[in-house]
């Protein structure tokens, strides 16, 4: 590498003494600059690769432990490459806990949550963005205020309400609130809807389109990126939620994955292999989703973060 830098240096035309002051001085600076740039780039790669290894190591560790035998899993010094590969842990996950049931529960809860969140947040956001009703500003300020309220403040009374309704140990406390909109997503979508040209709406009104018609036929199709963002974020939030299922679900066969994972923890002896096999299986759908929706994902999160 060093040789190539040297070569480049010699190829560069050097014109000493022929041009007046300032240019004479910038020439060598410029030459150093390109060399410096290459060194910088090398440093950047080095840091990126080193940090990547650090970031990915825990994942490799998880997968590796999930295909180790129990004695391999707790051997010291640890080995990253299991020999032989042992997939018994994966079978054991299903024998120890009703893992398929957890999967199904999580899919039901997450599916309903995503549908509820997107539908309700979008329609409320549309009203805040476009319908000039009396008192709109007042309610909008209240909406912004609720974003700052720590959920712990309302957690206990809400728990009591759901207990009173007989909803404890059902999916209702996990799903129903999603259908009542989410302040953050409403805010995010409102910002997006406001950017849609008003002319489109006006011409639709002249054509006799109802407000809901405008929302459904014009605003929704034009807002796909924002709606996908909200869907992904609420999917992640619901798939990963731990506290709500912990509070509301009692029967093991109603557990979600996040709660079910915890079952491998805190027993007399830790079963590292099955625990890591289960973790791998919980993370897997998220990773797949991430790869499919990566572009929307990063853009969407950036979008939501910036404007927040």
């Amino acid at each position: 590498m060093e040789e190539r830098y040297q070569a480049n240096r010699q190829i560069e035309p050097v014109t000493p003494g022929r041009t007046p002051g300032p240019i004479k001085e910038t020439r060598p600076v410029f030459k150093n600059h390109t060399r410096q740039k290459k060194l910088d780039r090398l440093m950047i790669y080095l840091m990126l690769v080193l940090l990547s290894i650090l970031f990915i190591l825990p994942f490799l560790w998880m997968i590796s432990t999930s295909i180790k035998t129990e004695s391999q899993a707790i051997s010291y010094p640890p080995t990253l490459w299991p020999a032989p590969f042992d997939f018994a842990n994966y079978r054991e996950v299903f024998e120890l806990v009703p893992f398929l049931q957890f999967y199904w529960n999580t899919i039901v809860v997450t599916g309903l949550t995503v549908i509820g969140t997107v539908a309700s947040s979008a329609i409320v956001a549309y009203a805040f963005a476009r319908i000039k009703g009396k008192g709109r500003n007042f309610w909008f300020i209240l909406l912004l205020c609720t974003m700052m309220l720590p959920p712990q403040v309302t957690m206990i009374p809400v728990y009591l309400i759901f207990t009173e309704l007989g909803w404890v140990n059902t999916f209702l406390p996990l799903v129903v609130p999603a259908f009542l909109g989410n302040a953050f997503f409403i805010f995010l979508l409102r910002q997006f809807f406001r950017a849609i040209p008003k002319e489109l709406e006006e011409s639709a009104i002249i054509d006799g389109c109802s407000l809901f018609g405008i929302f459904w036929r014009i605003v929704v199709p034009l807002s796909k990126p924002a709606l996908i963002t909200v869907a992904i974020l609420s999917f992640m939030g619901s798939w990963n939620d731990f506290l709500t299922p912990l509070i509301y679900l009692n029967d093991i066969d109603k557990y979600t994955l996040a709660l079910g994972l915890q079952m491998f923890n805190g027993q007399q002896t830790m079963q590292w292999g099955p625990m890591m096999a289960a973790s791998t299986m919980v993370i897997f759908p998220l990773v797949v989703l991430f790869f499919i929706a990566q572009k929307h994902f990063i853009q969407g999160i950036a979008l939501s973060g910036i404007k927040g």
Partner: protein
Amino acid sequence: MRQPSLARLRRSKTLAFYLFISPWLIGFLALAAGPMIYSFYMSFTEWQVMGSAEWIGLENYERLFFHDPLFWKTMWNTFFYTFLGVPLGLAFGYLLAVLLNQKVKFMGVFRTIFYLPSIVPAVASSLLWVLIFQPEFGLANALLDFIGLPTSRWLLSESMVKPALIIMSLWGVGGGMIIYLAGLQGVPPSLYEAAEIDGAGKWRKFWHITIPMTSHVIFFNLIMGVIGSFQMFTQAYVMSGGGPNYASLFYVLYLYQNAFEFFNMGYASALAWILFVIVLIFTLLQFKFFGKKVYYEYDD
């Protein structure tokens, strides 16, 4: 077409507005405003779920501040975690974002790698780090051993449990990193070009352009980081259960235990309100100290 009167149009618009926001309105009244008022009332009662709530005035608050050493312990733990963890996370996330903002190859791969930990469910990553922090055969000690540093008992050590949780939180810094990245990409290149013409070096450009121009995202991450840090729960619940000797008993974990393990609903409500006040004070303080220094690209 017959023109409806202006007043009628306005009234029908208002009606439509309330119809459209009715899901949120119901949710706000039933799940936010109502419970908020109720929890405020509950914080002045003694209530063990069974039986009825008994009005005890300020006793819960008195007990918190003067008779409950665990309250101060959780306060200390939470502040420690916040004041060490949040700045470290901000700096580390920013560093990663700056690295990812360079024009080099395979950037998509690097971005994915750094971002991935932050989409992992907190329970899964907690269990994974319990394994990593195992004193006998964990990866953390193996690495320390390898480079010749003293090993630690991590989650089982009173002095190391909080640093261990902070190390783990740095692994999940990708969420903030993505927001920085978006901010960095919003800095107009013309500014750098102008600075270069004026002879500014790398560091000068970084300090005088990059940081000021991204101050709004730094500020956003600071606020969100502090709020999130004060509400830390799952990791401590799963990894250490608040131990050893209450060294990782964080505020919300203590609140949860009071509400759903000891069923002291009144006391837990008082804790919730103190949390609310703390978060509010910190948010306002941050706005006061940093808010004015923040540059906003688009002012509404």
